[in-house]
């Protein structure tokens, strides 16, 4: 074994780490300055302050879907603290969080992590950055248009809308027929009487832009 190799490697790595440290520092400062307004919006909408997180990782330890995420929940909190907003909004994590709130029940800093995730999804949805959560986008849109026209959910109509939208025409169709036979799906939509009131709520929502 050549001794010099080790020091070479060390030296090389040190230089790399040094550079990485430098880069990160610059990025963080810039990112924070750029994204302060976003963090303010997040705090206001969720009522939660990711700044409170001290990285104990209890949230991640108890998260049943951490194995499906690109960044575990504690890392999302850290990224928020560092202003890495685009990365957070583009993450798969926010779409594969099931909102089970195990993290929220356990966080020693009292942060409702699930609520943060939820708010991030809403913001991503409103900004249109839903590439990784595309199916959810289709689901929500189909759902809300069903409620708009009937006042209630029309399950078959919804399922059709989703399957067409996601181009997975046969997803869960193995469940459809048994559900029909057990009287759990109806062919016709349930409607409420006062659809006018629902219309008023939708119109008003459009008017105030919410």
């Amino acid at each position, binding site marked *: 074994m050549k001794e010099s190799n080790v020091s070479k490697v060390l030296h090389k790595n040190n230089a790399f780490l040094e550079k990485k440290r430098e880069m990160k520092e610059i990025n963080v400062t810039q990112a924070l300055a750029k994204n302060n307004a976003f963090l303010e919006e997040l705090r206001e909408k969720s009522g939660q302050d990711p700044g409170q997180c001290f990285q104990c990782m209890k949230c991640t330890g108890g998260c049943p879907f951490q194995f499906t995420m690109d960044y575990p929940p504690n890392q999302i909190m850290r990224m928020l603290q560092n202003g890495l907003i685009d990365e957070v909004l583009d993450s798969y994590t926010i779409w594969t969080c099931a909102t*089970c709130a*195990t993290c929220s029940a356990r966080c020693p800093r009292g942060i409702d992590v699930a609520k943060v995730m939820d708010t991030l999804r809403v913001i991503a949805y409103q900004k249109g950055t839903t590439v990784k959560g595309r199916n959810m986008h289709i689901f929500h849109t189909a759902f809300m248009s069903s409620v708009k026209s009937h006042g209630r959910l029309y*399950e078959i109509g919804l399922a059709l809308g989703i399957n067409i939208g996601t181009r997975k025409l046969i997803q869960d169709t193995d469940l459809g027929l048994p559900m029909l036979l057990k009287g759990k799906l109806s062919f016709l939509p*349930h409607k409420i009487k006062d659809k006018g009131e629902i219309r008023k709520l939708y119109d008003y929502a459009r008017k105030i832009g919410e």
Partner: protein
Amino acid sequence: MKVAYYPGCSLSGSARELDTSIKAISSPLGLELVEVPDWNCCGASSAHSTGHFLSFALPARNVIKAEGAGCEEFTAPCPACYVRSFLAQKQLNDDQTMKQHLEEALDQKFGPSTIKIKNVIEIFMDRVTSLHVKKALNGLKVVNYYGCALVKPPETFGFFDDPENPQSMDKIMDLLGAESIQWPYKTECCSASLCFTNQDATWKACRDILQVAEDSGAHAVVAACTLCQNNLDMRQTQVNKKYGTKFNLPVIYFTQLIGLAMGIPGHKLGLDKHFVDPKPLLKSLNLY
């Protein structure tokens, strides 16, 4: 006592058993259920993912209608509906801006909302007593599965039981004469909400829960949440196909078992509506 009953979209569809069994046990337990007049869909997770106002206004309209029907308590058995209604009432009382928006949209004035909003376990847990038990569920071994939505996070949605080791359903089952097995997956998430974005995660979560339930020696899983019950019951064949397992575990609502112990015949409790048929099990124990 008059209780406003908000079935929501799932109880008239995929969660028929829960609806039927709640209706069957309520009056013997001294509850007069009044369906919320002309209720609308609460918007569940879709309304609040798409905008703020509708996520408040849709469930708020239901709470107001229930209040108008002269009820003291309000229950929405689907946990998604329950949470939306609970939060809408909070906003009606605390968020003046939102309230004004609603008043403007509907051109009406609304007073403070005082109706007590309870989840489905809360409504029944203090009403069932040993006096109601006509036919004890002797020999039936169950694991009680609360899921996540009803118990977490406790501060936000009205604390009623321990978020990590809840006991309310266990106590009800003990009272009915069934044996509640303690198990570690009481509040594990079943991942129903991920079935569109990450179906693999849904199957895995269902598999894990069913596996632990079976390993615990339970004959059946007792559920309270419509999403959990649906997911574990309906997807059991999909799970078996995907993982080569042979699960055959009935997933029964706690209200169905209350009814059974009260001596109400099984077909009036929706026990014939399950994907995994609970009748053979119940018959083998002389309970059906």
